[in-house]
């Protein structure tokens, strides 16, 4: 297949008289890592909510693999191969780490295997693999919501990964992580990209974004003000003025 995995054309969202997102166009190529940066309130999370179907577009288009996802319900969009994490982590309070990795796997309706313990051998295997990759083996039977913040983020990412998505949306993945943890995560995300996963991420941590992304978009008050390769964006005076304030 050719063409970008995800394409936004003039995506606009208004809440009453307030324009949260104005004419945003971006593409995520297959195997690409694209970052969206901008100050608080720039509309980054609104962007994710539009892509995942939590909000309806006011105008514009969102295409996933060339197909419009406008008006599709969130679970339908998720089943197309799109998984996300949340800025304020949303784990299932009653579940252990292992249970998160079992429930998160793509079902696409009820299957017979869903009636087996843990959803069958294939699912158990994938959950085990996720625990190894994201370094969660030691915490498997802990309630995920009782883990330290950085680990909770990893559980959320692992849960998203178990769904075997084509596109992973990460909302501030390294918030609450220290420098070493963030570096480890960057290594892991690059490895996942090497396996064909595409990633769209929102982040405040500039060194992390600059080191990881192929392409950056900058939003300010819902308006796209710049885009390009990380080095070009960093040097862009408009961006410096609006966001970075000083050289990053």
């Amino acid at each position, binding site marked *: 297949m050719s063409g970008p995995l995800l394409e936004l054309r003039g995506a606009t969202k208004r809440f009453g008289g307030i324009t949260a997102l104005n004419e945003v166009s971006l593409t995520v190529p297959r195997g690409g890592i694209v970052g969206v940066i901008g100050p608080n309130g720039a509309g980054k999370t609104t962007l994710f909510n539009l892509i995942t179907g939590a909000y309806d577009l006011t105008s514009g288009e969102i295409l996933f693999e060339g197909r419009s996802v406008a008006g599709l319900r969130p679970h339908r969009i998720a089943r197309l191969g799109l998984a996300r994490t949340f800025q304020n982590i*949303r784990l299932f309070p009653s579940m252990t780490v292992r249970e998160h990795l079992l429930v998160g796997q*793509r079902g696409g309706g009820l299957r017979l295997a869903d009636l087996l313990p843990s959803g069958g051998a294939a699912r158990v295997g994938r959950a085990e693999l996720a625990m190894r990759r994201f370094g969660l083996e030691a915490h498997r039977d802990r309630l995920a919501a009782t883990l330290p913040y950085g680990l909770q983020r990893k559980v959320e990412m692992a849960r998203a990964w178990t769904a075997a998505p084509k596109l992973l949306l990460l909302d501030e993945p390294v918030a609450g992580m220290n420098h070493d943890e963030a570096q480890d995560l960057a290594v892991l995300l690059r490895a996942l990209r090497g396996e064909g996963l595409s990633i769209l991420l929102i982040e405040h941590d500039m060194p992390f974004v600059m080191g990881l992304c192929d392409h950056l978009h900058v939003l300010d008050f819902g308006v796209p003000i710049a885009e390009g390769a990380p080095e070009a964006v960093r040097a862009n005076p408009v961006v410096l003025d609006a966001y970075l304030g000083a050289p990053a």
Partner: protein
Amino acid sequence: MSAYTAGLLAEIGIGGIAALGVYVILATGQLSLGNAAFMAIGAYAAGWLTVTHDVGLTAAVLAGALLSGIVGVLVGFPALRLRGIYLAMATLGFGEMTRSFFLFFEPLGGAAGFSGMRQLQVSTIWIWLGIVLGVLVLLARSRLWLTLRAVNDDEVAANLIGLHATALKVGAFGMGAAISGISGALFAHWHLFIEPGNFGFERSTELVMAVILGGSTVAAGPVLGAGLLVLLPETLRFVADWRLAAFGALLILVLLVRRQGLLDRNLLRALTFRRRGAEARPEAAEVS
């Protein structure tokens, strides 16, 4: 076995099954205050089949459960637009609606009640209880059950990992209704006489109480709760006229001290020695 003991055992079995119906619905975070209505549907349907069509008991129970489950799904759909106390009120309304339907539906006896069933054995009730409990215990280890818990925990996140939360909630509603329907069918063939008053609001609240008291996170909880609901008022007879008040006080005490109900996963694990030390030894359990 004395008739008194048999009567208590039958009540526990019937109440236990019906409470499991509430438990399944509650697993998705929906509180049903109308499950007595599903009992009524199961009771009247199964009774009508055995009395006027000479259908065997097992087939009649299954038919009653099926009909009840279908009605449950139909009720579940509009009720799903509602949440929390609003859903509870809607199910309460449905319960009263069903009760008055049978009150005025003359072909099934109306206010005069319906009779002519042949009595079943207490053991039959307990076999059904065993089957329903067994299925739910097995189901609790399945991924399907995890998806129900996910909807209960965080519906938005459940949708975003690709779960069809609405379908799961309606499905759970239908399944809970069917289970309560089984209980109603057995009730009809134990008491031999049924009337709409058997399936009123009080019965519905009793079922919810059994689940809350016994524990709403494991299938054994509602059965324990149903047992206590039958036995405690009996054993509290020494306080004579105050026994219902004493029972109420006990219920409040349990809720204050142990909000998750008497039984929960940890306690059950400790009692059965299953997966002991699973936290320390990850290779335990069903992973291998």
